[in-house]
């Protein structure tokens, strides 16, 4: 195997089993566990930090604060005046989540408890949280900056080329304001460091999740006052980077400082919440762009005004801004470019380096406007791009010296791959096609030594080889690619090549994998090392085989008919040491330049990669949901060293770009991230994406190693614009602010169609009080409640004194026993899926768990003879199912149920009895034919793994899913009457009520509640007072709140026979597969031969605090065959009569009405769908 082959990853066997060691998997050296105390305020002065109590707590070995670092210690990053961030906050915190102190203890729980015991006296101050606030007159200045502009850390403004000529040529001009939000890498392996300090040798060893060990060494050494050779990184597997791990974060130095202070190795793992809320996401760009073209469609001018949200500190903002701006002058060939860009400080988590590095943000604007110009000009968008291609072997306005450029063939590949012309002509309603292009370098000359890469190769006496390089492979396949390169040059089989990376003691100097430099730089240096070693081997072989042409292949040096194994040459070499022949080399790249403060243009990279992407989307006009149905990504990669890996980088980057296009965004409220959890962060799951079709447009770039260019970052650049262009093509909605979530589509469609909803609150006295409060919220009420709640409320987390309680587990055999055990703080556990998460986030409670998951009486799932049914048949069913079925009887019962479902009418007299502890998966299986709408609703809940564990009752009684409530905001429901509801002013577009909300705006999250309400289900409750039965429609008293008393246990759910005889359908709008409903609709009706509906139930989920029956609509359609337009009119009327939405969720009413249309359409088929 060698260059150009689809080699398997070199460690595929162990890696596919999860058995390569990531940092947190290391048990050696034995270590302490660390936790970090973070600022709860966006901006506050620190009056004092008292760690005394924490230090005395059990298991605690070290506590560090800013005082443990040399005075004035700052992360260097770009250096000079741009350095502004201390390792731990000293006298001020500038963002929620900023590190204030850290603790190492025997267990993580102890470290966390000790963090809570550290007393920090903050003096909170108002500070700007957005670009607009930061630039407003009078805004607090977060730092002293040198630009002379308020809160502007860096300003870059210039003209490139001939701007007046571009203006003169302009025949068409489009303008617009674009936003690419802050998105998270969401790497699967949370950032983690294991640090060990050897006091005797004064040596620090680090095992850390990084793409670039050298940067870690540099910064850690600087912050701890060590020399660089006192800090050594070791090799470890790294679980995804995408830029997140390409520079230092904070965990590295905090673990190191704790290890030094405690004298023991320390492991610091970020939690997923910290990963989202406290790490460094993509910088938000607000780009105002004007693009002009001449009458022939030649782009003549870009004029841009760009604000980049820096966050609270300069992490990589200055260079992200530059690379973003360069987009304007790199890909096309306008006469001129004019830009004014500002890096703006806000009191939020600092932005960082993220795959694409500013380019996706600006590309969104450029590529959207190219499409807008194409429409003005009446030219096909791909055609317009072809007319404006940059030339090969030319210099761009931003100073790039482009070598090969195969963007034209990439665009053609998209056109062919999507069958562009035909599908744009004959597309079905709601479908649209869009394309976008992009360009990216292959390793930027951004730092001193970035143009250098060293590598070494060892050859052993057994003929095997080892590549040593100082970079790291976070998943891009670099280790395999380098092994392929070495195997190719040395003529050694690939499985005889191993790779040592990262290790600072045993690998030569190398800056690491960032800026798409992995393949280019290390591919070049390893290739060079291997070639030089091969030359030495040929010389050695010539001694043995005689002069002449000597080839290295199959582990041998071969001349004519004679050969010698390479291992023997190692033995022969006088340079071999201990049976190893080593060769080290240094590759120096010529011809690239750094961007320095005094120059505006530079040739940053040796080669530039290009790509064209094309998307076909379907836009559901009823719900606003956008689905990508086909996607082609054509890349000019030069030569693919390993095509499978290149395709993997293309598909992976495109998928990530599609996530950002359609759903991803870090949402903040009061400077704090609201959606710091996968469940609230709409990144694509497997069912949300089509197969991405990568196309490798090969060329041979003379500048690259083996003709290769970069690919890893390129693939994330075009998807944003490709998708919004396709949406426009589909429904005429131009989305300029990502992500293109359903609310934006629906709002714009409503505007275009002139639809306005009127709620007539003045005629509804029951809403006056709510209206008044909502009016007062932005006028000081929210602020006052927030301040009061934070100061006087009981607090959301465990208090400083709270330590984990001794726990008790009661395994209840039945409902009665469970009810008896539910005293005090006890909590009922079904599948346990919610309880353990709560336990981790709020460890202080509860002390007692009462498990009912295996209680036989609660595990029944059977047909029962309904009062209105046929008694004889009922008896049979009862016998079949087994009246006292326990857990062991499940399987046979399920079989019985399926048989009943199979033949129509059979068992028509029976209701369905569902034990509280039946799992969702079991319910789905049982209702697949019996009541497909129930099965469809269940299938839309969470994930298969959760459905295998979560119980029916657990789903019905789960607490509200409001992301403020769940993610620790001190809201009214958690923190008492003096606290605000954060949804009123916060982001309430998806999860909150549009009707009937009072102080809490949340909804009942259970999809099962919605669908079972449409099936007239009843809930049987066992409590201290005995057994009672409540209709599900009366079970909920508020959002995720029920009639259950503290010692009440749900025992059974009954679905009556009459309801099961009706047709049903369930429809749900969710941001990703498995998400909680943004809105849902369940419909059941008896449909006679003529198609007339009777006994209709129409229920909306996630629109009001509790499942909402549209009774007026039900009555109006009774006995008729409603056409969709009539139904829609009736639904709209009832919604408008009762709804009282918040400003951001009016659209949900449209979506809900749209779901009713879908449900009506699917009523006859019984199928439902998640949308």
């Amino acid at each position: 195997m060698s260059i150009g082959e689809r080699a398997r990853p070199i460690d595929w066997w162990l890696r596919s089993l999860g058995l390569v060691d990531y940092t947190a998997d290391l048990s050696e050296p034995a270590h302490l566990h660390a936790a970090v105390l973070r600022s709860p305020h966006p901006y506050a002065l620190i009056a004092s930090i008292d760690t005394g109590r924490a230090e005395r707590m059990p298991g605690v070995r070290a506590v560090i604060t800013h005082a443990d670092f040399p005075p004035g210690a700052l992360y260097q990053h770009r250096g000079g005046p741009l350095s502004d961030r201390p390792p731990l906050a000293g006298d001020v915190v500038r963002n929620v989540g900023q590190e204030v102190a850290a603790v190492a203890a025997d267990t993580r729980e102890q470290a966390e408890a000790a963090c809570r015991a550290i007393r920090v006296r903050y003096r909170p101050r108002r500070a700007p949280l957005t670009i607009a606030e930061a630039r407003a007159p009078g805004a607090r200045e977060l730092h002293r900056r040198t630009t002379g502009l308020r809160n502007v850390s860096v300003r870059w403004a210039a003209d490139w080329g001939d701007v007046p000529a571009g203006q003169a040529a302009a025949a068409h001009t489009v303008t617009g304001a674009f936003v690419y939000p802050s998105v998270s890498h969401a790497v699967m392996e949370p950032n983690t460091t294991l640090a060990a300090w050897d006091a005797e040798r004064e040596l620090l060893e680090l095992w850390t999740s990084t793409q670039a060990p050298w940067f870690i060494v540099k910064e850690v050494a600087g912050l701890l006052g060590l020399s660089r050779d006192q800090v050594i990184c070791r090799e470890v597997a790294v679980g995804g980077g995408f830029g997140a791990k390409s520079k230092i974060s904070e965990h590295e130095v905090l673990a190191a400082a704790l290890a030094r202070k405690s004298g023991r190795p320390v492991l610091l793992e970020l939690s997923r919440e910290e990963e989202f809320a406290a790490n460094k996401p993509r910088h938000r760009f607000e780009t105002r762009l004007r693009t002009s073209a001449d009458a022939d469609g030649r782009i003549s001018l870009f004029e841009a005004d760009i604000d980049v949200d820096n966050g609270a500190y300069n992490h990589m903002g200055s260079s992200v801004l530059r690379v973003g701006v360069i987009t304007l002058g790199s890909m096309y060939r306008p006469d001129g470019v004019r830009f004014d860009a500002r890096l703006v400080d806000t009191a939020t988590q600092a932005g960082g380096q993220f795959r694409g590095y500013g380019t996706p943000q600006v590309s969104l604007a450029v590529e959207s406007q190219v499409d807008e110009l194409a429409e003005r000009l009446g030219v096909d968008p791909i055609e317009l791009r072809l007319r404006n291609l940059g030339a090969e072997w030319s210099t761009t306005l931003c100073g790039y010296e482009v070598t090969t450029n195969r963007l034209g063939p990439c665009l053609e590949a998209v056109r062919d791959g999507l069958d562009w012309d035909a599908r744009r002509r004959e597309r079905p309603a709601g479908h649209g096609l869009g394309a976008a292009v992009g360009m990216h370098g292959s390793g930027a000359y951004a730092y001193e030594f970035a143009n250098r890469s060293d590598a070494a190769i060892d050859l052993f006496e057994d003929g095997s080889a080892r590549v040593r390089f100082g970079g790291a492979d976070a998943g891009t396949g670099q280790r395999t690619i380098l092994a392929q390169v070495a195997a190719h040059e040395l003529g050694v089989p690939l499985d005889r090549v191993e790779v040592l990376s990262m290790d600072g003691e045993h690998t030569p100097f190398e800056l690491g994998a960032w800026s798409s430099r992995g393949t280019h730089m290390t591919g070049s240096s390893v290739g060079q090392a291997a070639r030089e070693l091969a030359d030495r081997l040929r010389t050695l072989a010539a001694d043995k085989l005689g002069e002449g042409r000597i080839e290295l292949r199959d582990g041998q040096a071969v001349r004519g008919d004679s050969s010698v194994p390479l291992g023997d040459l190692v033995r022969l070499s006088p340079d071999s040491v201990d049976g190893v022949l080593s060769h080290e080399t240094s590759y120096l790249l010529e011809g690239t330049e750094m961007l320095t403060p005094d120059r505006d243009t530079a040739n940053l990279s040796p080669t530039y990669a290009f790509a064209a992407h094309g998307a076909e989307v379907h836009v559901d006009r009823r719900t606003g949901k956008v689905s990508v149905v086909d996607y082609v990504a054509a890349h000019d990669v030069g030569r693919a060293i390993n095509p499978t890996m290149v395709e993997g980088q293309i598909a992976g980057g495109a998928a990530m770009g599609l996530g950002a296009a359609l759903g991803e965004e870090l949402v903040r409220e009061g400077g704090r991230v609201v959606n710091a959890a996968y469940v609230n962060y709409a990144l694509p799951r497997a069912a949300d994406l089509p197969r991405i079709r990568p196309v490798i447009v090969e060329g041979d770039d003379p500048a690259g190693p083996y003709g290769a260019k970069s690919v890893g970052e390129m693939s994330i650049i075009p998807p944003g614009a490709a998708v919004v262009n396709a949406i426009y093509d589909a429904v005429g909605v131009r989305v300029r602010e990502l992500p293109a979530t359903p609310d934006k589509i629906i709002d714009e469609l409503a505007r275009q169609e002139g639809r306005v909803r009127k709620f007539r609150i003045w005629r509804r006295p029951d809403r006056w009080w709510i209206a008044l409060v909502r009016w007062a919220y932005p006028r000081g009420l929210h602020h006052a409640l927030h301040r009061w709640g934070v100061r006087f409320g009981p607090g959301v987390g465990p208090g400083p004194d709270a330590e984990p309680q001794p726990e008790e587990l009661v395994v209840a055999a039945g409902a009665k026993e469970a009810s008896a055990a539910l005293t005090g703080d006890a909590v009922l556990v079904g599948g346990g899926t919610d309880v353990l998460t709560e336990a981790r986030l709020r460890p202080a409670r509860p002390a007692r768990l009462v498990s009912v998951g295996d209680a036989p009486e609660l595990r029944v799932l059977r047909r029962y003879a309904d009062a209105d049914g046929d008694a004889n048949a009922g008896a049979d069913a009862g016998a079949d199912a087994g009246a006292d079925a326990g857990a062991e009887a499940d399987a046979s019962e399920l079989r019985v149920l399926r048989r009943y479902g199979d033949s129509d009418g059979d068992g028509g007299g029976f209701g369905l009895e569902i034990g509280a502890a039946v799992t969702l998966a079991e319910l789905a299986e049982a209702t697949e034919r019996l009541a497909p709408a129930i099965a469809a609703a269940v299938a839309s809940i969470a994930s298969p793994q959760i459905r295998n564990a979560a119980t029916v009752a657990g789903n019905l009684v789960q607490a509200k899913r409001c992301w403020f409530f769940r993610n620790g905001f001190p809201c009214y429901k958690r923190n008492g009457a003096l606290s605000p509801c954060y949804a009123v002013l916060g982001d309430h577009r998806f999860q909150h009520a549009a009707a009937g909300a009072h102080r809490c705006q949340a909804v009942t999250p259970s999809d099962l509640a919605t669908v079972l309400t449409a099936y007239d289900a009843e809930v049987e409750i066992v409590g201290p007072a005995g057994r009672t039965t409540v209709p599900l429609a009366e079970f909920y008293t508020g959002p995720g709140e029920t009639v259950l008393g503290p010692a009440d246990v749900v025992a059974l759910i009954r679905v009556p026979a009459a309801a099961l005889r009706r047709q049903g359908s369930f429809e749900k709008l969710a941001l990703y597969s498995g998400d909680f409903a943004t809105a849902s609709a369940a419909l059941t009706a008896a449909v006679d031969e003529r198609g007339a509906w009777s006994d209709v139930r129409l229920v909306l989920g996630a629109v009001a605090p509790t499942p909402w029956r549209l009774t007026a609509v039900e009555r109006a359609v009774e006995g008729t065959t409603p056409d969709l337009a009539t139904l829609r009119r009736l639904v709209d009327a009832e919604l408008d009569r009762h709804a009282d939405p918040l400003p951001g969720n009016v659209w949900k009413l449209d979506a809900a009405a749209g779901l009713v249309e879908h449900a009506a359409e699917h009523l006859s088929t019984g199928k439902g769908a998640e949308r």
Partner: protein
Amino acid sequence: MTGTTDLVVNGERVTVRADARTSLARVLREQLRCTSVKLACERGECGACTVLVGGVPRMACVTPARLVGREVVTAEGLGEEARDLQEAFADHGAFQCGFCTAGQLVHAVAVLRGPVPGGAELEPYVRRRLSGNICRCTGYNGLVDAVCAVAEARA
């Protein structure tokens, strides 16, 4: 930790320490050194910790260790049954960083034990079934291809 519980893990009976709210994932990783069980969220939302409990895929991070009650199988214990899937994973680029991979593999093994639809139904089915396992690296292309290829080869 105050309590203990008995488990059968990859065919072996073991007694482990566990409180009421100790997760199966922590027990597997910390006491039994089954480090194929990764923790990427510890809230049941990503699938990195997927294990089989009584043959059924579950999120080990939100499974109380003391309430497991059935045999647990992790990637370490899949044995021969996973070999063709592992090979297909490697050949189709189903993993890059590998952090999600053991969870995907365990889940895929369970999916392929059941009946799977053929033809055009297969890919959407596999996508739906694997939607509880987030992969941030691959865009799922390689994963879905690999599972489909094995499903077809085994059919």
